[in-house]
């Protein structure tokens, strides 16, 4: 408990100073915020245009799909706000050797490498995404169900954990792939798989692919499971349990891999 309190205090301090720093570049911050709004606008324009020409996508009706878009935007925003910028610096830290300084502190290295800064402009994405989800629920005349909402939040947490773990696995690989293959690029590819309902993976060669990305490399579960749970009322307890289990397993595996990568870094650096 004491350890948890300590890390929370440290996290608040980091967040506070990070916000102060980001606000000192005020124009930059506002522009980033504006761009995020624009990006949501682009996503919504795409959604609106598509549904002007079709009635459903993979079995998702218009308001259901809107919820999916909001869910995706919020989840991606959450990862971008908390972890993405930190992880993308890792390759540079390895290259310059500045990673050493994180290794010297009496703080868990994974915490320092992945959590040290909050990207406050992406926090707005979470709020906007939540707003979009709210609108979609209103359009669906969603019957309020506390249990469902709580399990939904749990699935959001699990989805975030899965995305975080995959991000950590990619980040750790930077120790060996010495070129700065920008993590942002890889993350962009990753989110492109997360962005659409699982149901589009139907057909002769797509189905196995969908199965692979659901149960072996479970990217497709990240947004799909919470969204489906909430608006499609598919009470697939097995899938929910599986998602939770996978999240825990991936957190464990990614941490192990990260520590393995650190060991390798420490054997090789000079």
């Amino acid at each position, binding site marked *: 408990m004491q350890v948890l309190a300590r890390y929370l205090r440290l996290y608040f301090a980091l967040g506070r100073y990070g916000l102060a720093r980001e606000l000192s570049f005020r124009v930059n911050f506002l522009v980033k915020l504006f761009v995020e709004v624009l990006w949501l606008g682009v996503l919504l324009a795409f959604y609106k245009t598509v549904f*002007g020409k079709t009635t459903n996508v993979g079995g998702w009706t218009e308001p259901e799909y809107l919820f999916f878009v909001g869910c995706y935007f919020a989840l991606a925003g959450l990862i971008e706000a908390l972890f993405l910028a930190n992880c993308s610096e890792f390759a540079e830290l390895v290259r310059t050797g500045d990673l050493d300084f994180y290794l010297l502190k009496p703080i868990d290295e994974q915490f320092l490498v992945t959590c040290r800064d909050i990207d406050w402009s992406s926090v707005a994405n979470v709020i906007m995404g939540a707003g979009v989800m709210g609108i979609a629920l209103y359009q669906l005349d969603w019957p309020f169900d506390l249990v469902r909402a709580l399990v939904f939040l749990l699935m959001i947490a699990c989805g975030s954990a899965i995305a975080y773990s995959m991000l950590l696995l990619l980040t750790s690989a930077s120790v060996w792939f010495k070129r700065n293959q920008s993590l942002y690029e890889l993350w962009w590819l990753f989110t492109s798989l997360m962005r659409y309902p699982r149901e589009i993976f139907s057909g002769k060669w797509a189905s196995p692919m969908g199965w692979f990305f659901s149960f072996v490399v479970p990217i497709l579960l990240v947004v799909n499971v919470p969204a489906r749970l909430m608006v499609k009322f598919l009470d697939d307890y097995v899938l929910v349990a599986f998602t939770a289990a996978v999240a825990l397993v991936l957190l464990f595996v990614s941490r192990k891999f990260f520590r393995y990568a650190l060991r390798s870094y420490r054997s090789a650096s000079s």
Partner: protein
Amino acid sequence: MKPVASPHDVDDAVEERGRDPQEEVRSLTQSRIVRVARKYGNILRVSLIERLTYRGDFFLSTILRFLPMVTTILLWQAIYAGAGEKPIAGFSLHEMIAYLLLVHISRMFSSMPGLAAGIARDIRDGQLKRYLLQPIEMLGYLVSYRGAHKIAYIATSSLPYALLFFLCREYFDKLPDFLTLAAYLCSLLLAFVVGFFFEASIGMVGFWFLEVTSLLYVVNTLNFFVSGQLFPLDLLPPFWAGVLKAMPFQYMAYFPAAVFLGKIQGAALVRGLFAELVWGLVFIALARWLYRVGLKRYSAFGG
């Protein structure tokens, strides 16, 4: 996450720092043809070596680059299924997917990663003085440098893209005739001109404002939509489609792809190409004017 860092932009990024001033002075004293040949040869050689050196990276990025294409194809299949398999805005499913593939090719010609930022940086760092002291004109130099780099990039990307198009050949129901192909190539070359001078103009804003990167961010996000990279502009309601088709941004993605697919024919095609040419000239003039005016301001303030 904004699509400003597509695989294109990373691979194609020009290492601005790699420019060697000594090399440039030396090259100025040689005959023009030798200069050009040497420069192209050099860039090509360096790019090839660079790609081969980071071997794990090379294989991985080739594979991962095409993953979003797969999800895009699947998404549109689902969209068409929901629309009863009927054509949407005059595009059949096959044409839609062919369009999205062709947009990649358009972008290969029209995207200029790092150009505006590089110009702004040169202005800020004072590297601009180099162009003032030496008898080389900045825009001319950048165009030829970027052009050579594009050729190298297209050369090294041609194999993976050829593979991709081969795998997706079923989506190309008919290939364009010779005339259409010629028009298509014209539109691609002009797309390079439009793309280059548009980005260069944005870079010139660096003479007046420090934070060009913020502006770029906004422009790129908007451009992603209005240039037709998400879907053909014909999908939009007629009013908006008309507005966007009157703007120059369509030439950076939508127009060449539509030409290839035969969506723009006859008189409309000629008009379109002509308009593309005009826009190209407009941007050339704009960039040069901004450069001249900006330079005056720059010298006045001592830089």
